[in-house]
């Protein structure tokens, strides 16, 4: 049982549940208390000790159900005799069944253990043999779907396929009908083993596969990901947001020892007649980030803007105040759309309002200056996301200068590579003179770094 639990812990890690050694010890102790006879109780006990959140509970529950569902060898035998046997075997309790089978099974004498087991139709024994053979073949090491074949054959070898083949050859000569039955049983066995291996793949390979996929996704250019990957990318962005939240959500209290807070000290020591037993020191309060984001949603940049807005707006705990604006040929505020709607709906609404135009940075900046300049305070970080390709229209860099003067920092994120800046209709060099930071931002990883740096300046 201990072996099984260890394999279950590995499977649980694969399902995304963090199982530390201490937790596995707790789970072992819990299982020792509740026993293993009642599956519902065992499930509850494992869920209580291992899972630490509602999401983990769901994942672990699925994992438990998958882990403890044993694929069983099929019972469909073409011969009538075989069916009789099967029916008999099912009616009787497993141990008695195998005993009686062995007693009456005259023709199976002289055969290998695997052949005898198959002929006796003892499902429990076969399932147990498959389980122990997959242990011997270390099925829990399976990582990729291409390994299925080799693991199947390893398990069959461990079960004694060689001996079974010899038996088959021998029987074909002496007892053809029995050989036929054995051959059918062998096919059923192969199928069962294949199911076991598929199940093992689903259980143990998930972690590895997921890591690999996420790694590829993190470094894929956001503007060119395929439609089917968008959902995965959203999940990844949410993960990134969670990580950033955890890192920056606690406002760091920095006690500045040295400056006595006289008022608080007196109040705190009022009970002792003002004799200062406890001292209170002045604290320095840090600002929470205020962000104004201007996002280009024209053609090529739209996808990047989408993910950027999703990221910024899932940072509620870290960033108090975000105002987002979207533009292509003109500019509108989109904060409310993003706050109230689901990401998919919000993006399609924004696109229908301002998207799909050819981008005009000049007139969009004019729109911003006219209506929203008051949104900027000396604590604000302004983030512009765009490729700065203004279709040879007036870039109005003077407005950008004024924006930069009114705000704490001006960060430009450009999805294009540095090489392309300044070529064609790109106005990047002209804008760059007024920006505190200009950086490339084309992949999820670069996006994470950029946002992380922006938030970190407020810590």
């Amino acid at each position: 049982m201990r072996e099984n639990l260890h394999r279950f812990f590995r499977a649980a890690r694969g399902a995304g549940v963090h199982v530390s050694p201490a937790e596995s010890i707790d789970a072992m102790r819990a299982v020792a208390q509740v026993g293993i006879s009642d599956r519902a109780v065992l499930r509850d006990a494992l869920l209580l000790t291992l899972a630490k959140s509602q999401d983990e509970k769901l994942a672990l529950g699925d994992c438990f159900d998958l882990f403890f569902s044993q694929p069983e060898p099929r019972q469909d035998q073409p011969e009538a005799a075989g069916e009789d046997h099967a029916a008999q075997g099912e009616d009787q309790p497993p141990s008695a069944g195998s005993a009686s089978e062995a007693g009456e099974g005259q023709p199976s004498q002289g055969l290998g253990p695997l052949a005898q087991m198959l002929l006796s139709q003892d499902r429990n024994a076969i399932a147990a043999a498959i389980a122990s053979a997959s242990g011997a073949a270390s099925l829990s090491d399976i990582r990729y779907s291409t390994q299925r074949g080799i693991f199947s054959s390893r398990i069959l070898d461990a079960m004694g396929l060689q001996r079974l083949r010899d038996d088959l050859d021998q029987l074909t000569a002496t007892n053809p009908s029995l050989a036929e039955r054995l051959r059918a049983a062998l096919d059923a066995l192969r199928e069962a083993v294949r199911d076991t291996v598929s199940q093992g793949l689903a259980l143990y390979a998930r972690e590895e596969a997921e890591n690999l996929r996420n790694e590829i996704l993190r470094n894929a250019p956001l503007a060119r990901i395929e439609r089917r990957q968008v959902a995965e990318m959203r999940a990844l962005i949410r993960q990134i947001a969670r990580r950033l939240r955890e890192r920056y959500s606690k406002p760091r209290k920095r006690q500045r020892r040295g400056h006595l807070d006289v008022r608080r000290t007196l109040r705190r020591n009022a009970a002792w007649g003002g004799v200062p037993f406890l001292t209170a020191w002045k604290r320095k309060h840090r600002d929470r980030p205020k962000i104004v984001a201007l996002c280009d949603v024209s053609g090529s940049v739209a996808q990047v803007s989408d993910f950027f807005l999703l990221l910024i707006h899932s940072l509620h705990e870290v960033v108090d105040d975000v105002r987002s604006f979207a533009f292509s040929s003109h500019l509108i505020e989109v904060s409310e759309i993003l706050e109230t709607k689901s990401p998919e709906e919000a993006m399609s609404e924004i696109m229908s309002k301002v998207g799909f135009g050819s981008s005009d940075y000049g007139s969009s900046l004019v729109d911003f200056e006219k209506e929203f300049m008051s949104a900027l305070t000396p604590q604000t970080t302004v983030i512009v996301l765009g490729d700065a390709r203004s279709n040879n229209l007036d870039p109005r860099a003077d407005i950008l200068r004024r924006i930069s003067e009114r705000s704490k920092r001006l960060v430009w994120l450009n999805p294009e590579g540095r090489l392309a800046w300044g070529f064609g209709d790109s106005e990047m060099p002209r804008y760059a003179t007024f920006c505190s930071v200009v950086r490339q931002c084309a992949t999820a990883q670069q996006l994470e770094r950029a946002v992380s740096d922006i938030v970190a300046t407020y810590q």
Partner: protein
Amino acid sequence: MADQKASTSIEAVESGLAAQGYIASRQIATAVYLSQQIEKPILVEGPAGVGKTELAKAIAAWRGMKMIRLQCYEGLDEAKALYEWKYAKQLLYTQILKDKLGEVLGGAQTLHAALDQLHDFGDVFFSKEFVEPRPLLQALEQPGGCVLLIDEIDKSDAEFESLLLEILSDFQVTIPELGTVSAITPPTVILTSNSERDLGDALKRRCLHLHIGFPEQRLEERIVESRVPGISQTLRRQMVGFIHEIRSLDLKKLPSVSETIDWARVLVLLQASELDTEIVKDTLNVLLKYEADIEAATPQVTTFIAKAARSNVFG
């Protein structure tokens, strides 16, 4: 054998809690049983009003133990949760003993000798006499054990969480002047959280994690039955069915078990024999706590009553 014992003990927990008027699901009972057996605290999460705090009360009542409650809030610190020195008493005593001090130090010729003599008196003023035990220390000092309820842990600061770690894993606290105080009998610890913020992994690791959601219809009916015995069976079924329909709406705050019980009491008071649109609309403010929610639910009332009545026929 052990298995047999375990499942009967879990049933015993279930019936024990039921005797106190707390209808526990199998999962809750398993958690309570396990926490006793492997001496681990239970961290209970779930929406407001599903009976997280009630669970602790029921356990205390069932096992005849004292319940010590620590309500968490922002800014809660050691001095309010663990222990505090009785400064005023210390000050008073030094004043009173001032005269005695002369006698004690009378024989000493030099400053050094006086200091040595003072040392002999040891840390009189930093002894148990002058410690004011707060809930956490109180819980450790109960000779017969107790149920320690740390309520709404998510409201406290992250620093306070770290303070709890020693108590939760070893049932002991360290007071610098006194040394380590271990529990006489390990208390049963229940922590509750409304998931307002994510708790630290270190804290979660030390606890059994129990999530109490909204109960299933049958379970909720049993809860209402035990809490509001005067209600008729038909009405009970109808109202619980109605509440389950309400929970399928997208509301700011879904009605939870405590609201169900309140509503049942109200309906009994109004001597309703079955649900009708009129009475539901009049009492909807018991269930829903936001004006916007009431507005969203009102047009649906008639359909929901019909649905609840229909499921009643089949159920």
